[in-house]
């Protein structure tokens, strides 16, 4: 039988002032860098400061690199923003990958079949609508099943990803160019028809602007509209929603249509605004990474901007140190892992306070 006070004592915090929470996060980031430095030095004998500088170099070292980072972060952010309403509703949409792919396929189809017939403006308009519709469809199907038969949305949306991947495979085979390459190649390479145009001479600026507008719009939608209120109520308790006269089924279907639509739009941006091609790697796991983005930001779309940037920065930095120092990918993955571990772990210390056994108290007891 234990006859002593436990060594560690964990208690829930009552809510922390925002700036203190950010201090904890900052401390975690610093700690992460220190531990990573230790790891880097002990394994590779490289100067950690140089390695960090290389990471920065990889992500922001040249205007070109900075724009690529911004481009990738904005696509990741777009998916995260798409997941926000579903997650607020506690509808675990893990199907962003598929919804994005369907949006990408729809865009590619419009670009390929309409490339010669329509102007770029018309192409963009049609492909936006098509990608939004395709993503929304992919989101609505599991929502309908959930609303009607209470199927498990996590499994359902996950499975929908594989259907989307198979459809993409089929389309890639259909649109193969040149024949035998097993890829679609760059669509409308000569004419650039249907490509998102450069803004002020910056190729990816429009991508970033579109996503930032979406980010603000989604924040306002969730926080200030009646729809947003309904989403929060349904997410908290379906019973309460019914009690308040909210049609739970309608809210589920409507919200998933929105979630899927935004994820579909990210596919449009990826195809028309970035790669100008379609393949199964158009989504490339970003539909899943975005789940981390959404969760770490606690569904606050503004915080998602930071998280998405951080994740893409880490990815670009990792690639850079791998090539610059001839390390294999795993070493840079470990660094990324350490940083994420500390940042995620810091949330625990924001929620909870940890106290250690105080020796003073025990002495008091002896005297008493």
């Amino acid at each position, binding site marked *: 039988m*234990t006859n002593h*006070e436990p060594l560690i004592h964990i208690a829930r915090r009552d809510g922390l002032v925002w700036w203190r929470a950010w201090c904890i996060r900052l401390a975690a980031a610093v700690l992460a860098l220190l531990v990573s430095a230790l790891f880097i030095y002990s394994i590779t004998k490289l100067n950690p400061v140089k390695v960090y500088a290389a990471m920065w170099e990889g992500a922001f070292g040249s205007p070109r690199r900075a724009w690529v980072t911004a481009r990738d972060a904005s696509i990741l952010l777009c998916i995260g923003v798409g997941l926000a309403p579903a997650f607020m509703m506690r509808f675990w949409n893990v199907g962003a990958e598929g919804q994005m792919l369907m949006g990408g396929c729809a865009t590619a189809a419009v670009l390929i079949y309409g490339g010669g017939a329509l102007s770029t403006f018309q192409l963009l308009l049609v492909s936006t609508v098509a990608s939004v519709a395709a993503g929304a469809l992919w989101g609505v199907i599991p929502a309908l099943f959930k609303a009607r038969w209470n199927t498990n949305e996590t499994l359902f949306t996950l499975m929908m990803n594989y259907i989307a991947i198979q459809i993409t495979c089929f389309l890639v085979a259909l649109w193969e160019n040149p024949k035998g390459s097993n890829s679609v190649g760059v669509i409308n390479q000569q004419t650039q028809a249907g490509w998102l145009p450069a803004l002020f001479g910056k190729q990816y600026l429009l991508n970033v602007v579109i996503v930032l507008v979406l980010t603000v719009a989604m924040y306002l939608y969730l926080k200030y509209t009646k729809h947003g209120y309904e989403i929060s109520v349904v997410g908290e308790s379906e019973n*309460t929603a019914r009690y308040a*006269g*909210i049609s739970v089924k309608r809210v589920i279907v409507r919200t998933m249509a929105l979630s899927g639509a935004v994820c579909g739009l990210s596919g449009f941006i990826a195809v028309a605004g970035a790669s100008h091609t379609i393949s199964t790697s158009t989504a490339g796991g970003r539909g899943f990474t975005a789940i981390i983005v959404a969760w770490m930001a606690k569904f606050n779309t503004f915080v998602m901007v930071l998280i998405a940037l951080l994740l893409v920065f880490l990815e670009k930095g990792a690639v850079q140190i791998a090539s610059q120092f001839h390390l294999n990918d795993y070493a840079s993955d470990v660094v990324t892992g350490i940083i994420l571990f500390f940042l995620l772990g810091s949330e625990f210390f924001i929620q909870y306070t940890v106290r250690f056994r105080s020796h003073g108290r025990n002495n008091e007891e002896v005297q008493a």
Partner: protein
Amino acid sequence: MAEEFAVRMVNVTKTFGHVTANDKVYLELRKGEILSLLGENGSGKTTLMNMLSGIYFPDSGQIYINGREVTIASPHDAYELGIGMVHQHFKLVDVLTAAENIALGLPGGVMVDRKAIAAKVRQICDRYGFDVDPDKKIYDMSVSEKQTLEIVKTLYRGAEILILDEPTAVLTPQETEKLFAVMRNMRDDGKSIIIITHKLNEVLEISDRVTVLRKGEYIGDMDTAKADVRALTDMMVGRTVTLNIQRDEPASPQRRLEIRNLTVRDKDGVTRLDDINLDVYAGEILGVAGISGCGQKELLEAIAGLQPAVSGSSIKYRPTGPEGPAEELLGLGPRAVSDRGIRLAFVPEDRLGMGLVASMNIAGNMMLKEYRSGKSPLVERRRPYDMARDIVRELEVVTPSIETPVRQLSGGNVQKVLVGREIALHPTVLMSAYAVRGLDINTSYTIYRLLNEQKKAGVAVIYVGEDLDVLLQLCDRIAVLCGGRLNDIVDGRTATKEQVGYLMTNFRREAGA
């Protein structure tokens, strides 16, 4: 000297964030006695007992079991010390049998010797007068049976010190009597028992001594032989509370709801309400009595539009004013009802899971029923905040701010927010289910006062309750449900407790028509 006490808790303090749940509390339990732990809601009774049963760990203070200072860091430690607690929410696995639930978590191999367990269970039952079928599945059990099983489970594990957390809250008067009988048997066998309660009559009836907490502080203890209701109330609330509930004669009651042939079946086709015929009048409080699960919930939810009924059922709403066409409520749903301008207020039994959004602040909850109003796609921001401030001020809701999620409020304050919102809707019908369950005396009286004010304002009030004393002192008429059927409607002023209790358990026309 120390041998005399099974439990001594000295200067025990526990804080949650800024809230001090227990402040230097002192408690002693003699061997072979029943001790009542009395206090209003939020006075820290359950917190104190959770520290004894290893669920919480005290910030400071000492605990002595049988005279020896101990550290209880986990429920396992408590169990090793012979302490067993029966919680308000039972911790049983529905799909297993009674014996299997007892075997869960016991040391030993993978194999369960059902026969041995069943034998020992029977032995415990015979000894104390429990009635448990070891082979019965939990989902087939009534609340009372589950509670009995929880007690047997703790005894099976060798508990010498039993803690019962508000055990009578879920029991009928008859079941309570049965529970008290076995508690006395256990005491006579040398067990030491703590019963958490806020019902004074139970304190006086069952316990040898009583310890009173108020706002997390130890107030005192006394032998119940020397105590009376007045003295205990004073200790508990700190000042004398009038025990009379005000009841005015209904002023010109007017028929508001006509319930005809209301029959409700649940998903499995089980009849929950059977052919109910009942009128509800504006300006009166209609009480609904019955053993829990006899159709009270279905009745209120059917009126509120949340419960589909069998065809042929009818709930007609007669609007206020001289004469208007009566409207059929069944089949409309809550939204259509409110769109027609019919203002039904409903205080459901499950406050945080149905009446409120637990994670939202008070203002957010104010919007719940009215957020739709207006053409703008945006929700109105100002009005809910004004409403929230009004309710916090008028009903004296204790909260750090109106931005605090309602989940963090205590039970009584949660109910004030809920009732306050429903009344702010200016309803014509106000339904409440177990509106004072788990509330302290002061808050309960606030609720009675609010209901009476609504009655005076010409609202048709329906009060589903479990405490017969309150029903008989508050309500003008009392409809008694028995197994989903309406057994009788009695006059609240002339009916007796025995009469209502009898109607709850015996269907009048069983043999006859």
